[in-house]
């Protein structure tokens, strides 16, 4: 039995499916591909797969991963890529299979590219609006939790940022806290910005890479 990490992109139509739907699509693909994956041993056996860090609905993911247990230690990684891709829709495509080097729980940061635009606001103005938001010492938003609404400062979760003006959008590169303990969803930053300016932006969000707490690339 070997733990392997399957790396894929989630884009196009598949941006719009939830994590639960992605999970089901992957299980069906694993089933169809007949790759020797370890199955759960309950009453309804199904392929066992876990996702180190689920991706929000609507985001593009260019470096997503899923962990499975391979029953045949010598099974070729190339074969996994070919077989799985034949069983997946075009919006989900596997490009790499590796051994799982780091434990899934080690994910601590994620970096994002966000393209922000608004139909009637110039990129210059948007740039200034974003800069003004990031210049604040605290960005307090209301977050819905199990115990009702609570106020959270999300500024702490933004580890670094770069902003630049492009032809018809403003591009942000953000490194945000990620993982099970302290996760910052970039949608919250956009919501905070919208609350400040009263505008509704079009945001195209891509998650690029994951990192551990020492800022090493998650592998």
């Amino acid at each position, binding site marked *: 039995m070997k733990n392997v990490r399957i790396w894929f992109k989630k884009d*196009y*139509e*598949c941006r*719009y*499916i*939830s994590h*639960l*739907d992605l999970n*089901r*699509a992957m299980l*069906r*693909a694993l*089933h*169809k*591909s007949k790759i020797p994956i370890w*199955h759960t041993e309950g*009453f*309804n*056996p*199904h392929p066992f797969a876990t996702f180190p860090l689920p991706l929000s*609905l*609507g985001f593009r993911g260019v470096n997503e991963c899923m962990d499975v247990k391979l029953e045949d230690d010598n099974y070729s990684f190339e074969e996994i890529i070919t077989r799985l891709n034949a*069983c*997946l*829709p*075009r*919006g989900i495509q596997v490009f790499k299979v590796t051994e799982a080097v780091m434990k899934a729980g080690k994910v601590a940061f994620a970096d994002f590219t966000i393209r922000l635009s608004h139909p009637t606001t110039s990129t210059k103005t948007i740039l200034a609006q974003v800069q003004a938001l990031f210049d604040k010492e605290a960005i307090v938003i209301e977050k819905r939790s199990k115990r009702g609404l609570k106020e959270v400062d999300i500024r702490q979760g933004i580890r670094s940022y770069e902003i630049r003006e492009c032809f018809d959008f403003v591009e942000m590169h953000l490194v945000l806290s990620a993982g099970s303990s302290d996760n910052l969803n970039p949608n919250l930053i956009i919501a905070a910005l919208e609350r400040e300016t009263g505008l509704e932006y*079009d945001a195209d969000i891509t998650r690029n890479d994951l990192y551990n707490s020492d800022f090493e690339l998650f592998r």
Partner: protein
Amino acid sequence: MVSKEVERLLLKVQKPGRYVGGELNAVIKDKKQVDLRFAFCFPDTYEVGMSHLGMKILYSLFNSVDYIWCERVFAPWMDMEELMREKGIPLYALESGDPLSDFDFIGFTLQYELSYTNVLNMLRLGNIPILSRDRTELKNIVVAGGPCACNPEPIADFIDLFFIGEGEEVDLEVMELFRACRADGVSKAEFLRRCAEIEGVYVPSLYEVDYNDDGTIKSFTPKDGAPQVIHKRLMKRMDESFYPDNFVVPLVEIVHDRAVQEIFRGCIRGCRFCQAGFLYRPVREKSPEVIDAQCRALCENTGYDEVSLSSLSSSDYSRIVPLLERLTEWTGEEKVSISLPSLRVDGFTDEIMNRIKTVRKSGLTFAPEAGSQRLRDVINKNVQHDELMQTCATAFAGGWTTVKLYFMIGLPTETLDDVAYIAHLGQAVVDTYYNTPNHAKGKSVRVTVSASSFVPKPFTPFQWEPQDTIPLLHEKQAHIKESITTKKITFNYHDADTSFLEAVFARGDRRLCRAMELACERGFHFDGWSDCFDLSKWLEIFEECGIDPAFYANRRRSFDEILPWDHLDYGVSKAFLKKECEKAYGGETTPHCRLKCSGCGAAKYGEGVCFEKRQDMV
């Protein structure tokens, strides 16, 4: 493939995965390379429509023809519809993202009457004029088929032509004719006239209806050489009939998210309330070899780990045990489970149970339909009380602890005593559980009793019957509730208001079209969903149009009245239906097709169960 404009809306609506296409096995063609584009519209949400087998069959069949590109269209849910209207985005097909108005054919499948407003609403969202006469050119031909096409009259003004019966052949014949007509520069009117010559095609605009003073139909007159009677089409040999080896596999969860394998069409039983049981006569089976091969291909191509064997009454498949034996040879190893919906009470044997239990234990559902034996005989359900108890005991001994029981209220001749028997039957099942010595240890039993309201349907022996009024249905629902004394029984019932509207449309005539038109103008949609349905708004419309809905729903029709669907022939004679209705009043049952032929008329197709060797003949 969706446009930038649509993408902007997607993050603002619930379950955006329904509006993007891009699923595994979706068919993408080059629109420049095809001659004819067909928009297959299901007048309900994606999750409901994608679960429908007929659509899967026709989608694959149409796309197997080189010159046709068939795409899928579903009704957007309310949030999406509102945004699309606001932004002026027309309804589009999922494969190309092109608007409805780009399509040569716009085809609807009519599965239930309450989806009619969605049909009109979808046309409107696609910027297609809803009235057939307002669409004058040879394009955007609006066609419809499916079970509700058996009484097409309430939507006759909107649909250019209806497919009567099974669509696999006739649909393609009409498309081929369209292609020829367009090449010759023929008008739409002439195209429709030529279509009427094809068996199984009904062109409503070629008929005039006159009414008597009492509101009943006086005459139904064809013009321009259209046939007096339109005969249904059917696939005679199921083994040779087209069946997809591939389904579009949805990205989001749908209602029936599994592979579906049709095992036969029709039903031998002849329950007197059941429209499908008469429309699809005679029974035509596929062979176990063909089913096995088709099942296997489907599972392999979709990746589904569950396959459902579909028919009107699965345990009536004549070779059910050999079939299950064959399937379980590979399903266990491939980790595929088999489900058998539509099991009859008298068809659930130890052997079947053990076969379907090997991989996954699904819930058990039975439909006794009526509580008392007397009433079950009236409706010709032919299920005995002891059989039901025996079956439940078998299931309980096999480890099941939940059973769902489906009933109808408002059946012809029903009294409050019959209704109370529904509760008694539920109680008897609970008692059976505790009397079964080897039932699951330490577990309680759950019995769900569901009661829907009877809706009289065309082409059934009860097509002349009045529906119970809404107050009477409410009284009966309350009576069941009061008669249940244990918490082990959960009682559900169906909203009587929706059943009433269903009854109006099921047996309505062309005068309802005006009401439909108004409903469309007022933005009615999703009548089948409690989120949207409001009977009082419909009653307002009926009043404005001078229509008395009770005339259609609650009136007893005389046997010699001309019914709005009398010009259609589904193979079962009116004389037979009348005889069955009279037998119902006497509580006299009719044996099923394999026991004895009762001469319904379907033998004229020369195939199927009518020509099987019967036990009494051997």
